[in-house]
């Protein structure tokens, strides 16, 4: 059995790498993780915002962004986003 790893430790290992963030609603972000805090508010750079609708996926590019942790549901280290 692998040694246990804490969730926040996993996120911390992801700093400097690409990450895929899924919100509670139909919205997703990809970008490079710069850092985060105890509330899992996240600082990302080279960000793409995806709005997922029945009609398709809207993509927006953003610079350095502070993402409010309130609506974050899931983090995928190294994830490429909904269009990959």
């Amino acid at each position: 059995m692998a040694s246990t790893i804490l969730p926040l430790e996993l996120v911390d290992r992801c700093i400097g790498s690409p990450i895929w963030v899924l919100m509670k609603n139909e919205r997703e972000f990809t970008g490079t993780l710069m850092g985060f805090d105890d509330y899992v508010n996240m600082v990302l750079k080279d960000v793409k915002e995806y709005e997922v609708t029945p009609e398709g996926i809207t993509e927006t590019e953003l610079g350095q962004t502070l993402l409010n942790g309130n609506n974050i549901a899931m983090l995928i280290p190294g994830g490429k986003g909904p269009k990959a």
Partner: protein
Amino acid sequence: MSSASPQPEEAAAAAGSPSEFLKNIVGKRVKVRIGSGVDYHGLLTCLDGYMNVALEETEEWANGRKTAEYGDCFLRGNNVLYISALEDL
């Protein structure tokens, strides 16, 4: 950044972190998106740990169109989805 991390939160609370970001972004032009998807582009005057935000020379954008302009604008932090830099930090 601290080395060996028995407390990974400490390592995260260094350079790239939210508090650092907030220090660096005051005075810059930002886009603040709120939960409804409406955007506010403006000069970031100040903000706090609750993500309450004060902007100057603000444009309100909804559905890809400018819907309003405000000289001064205060956004309550609980509504903020993200704060994004429109210029290089």
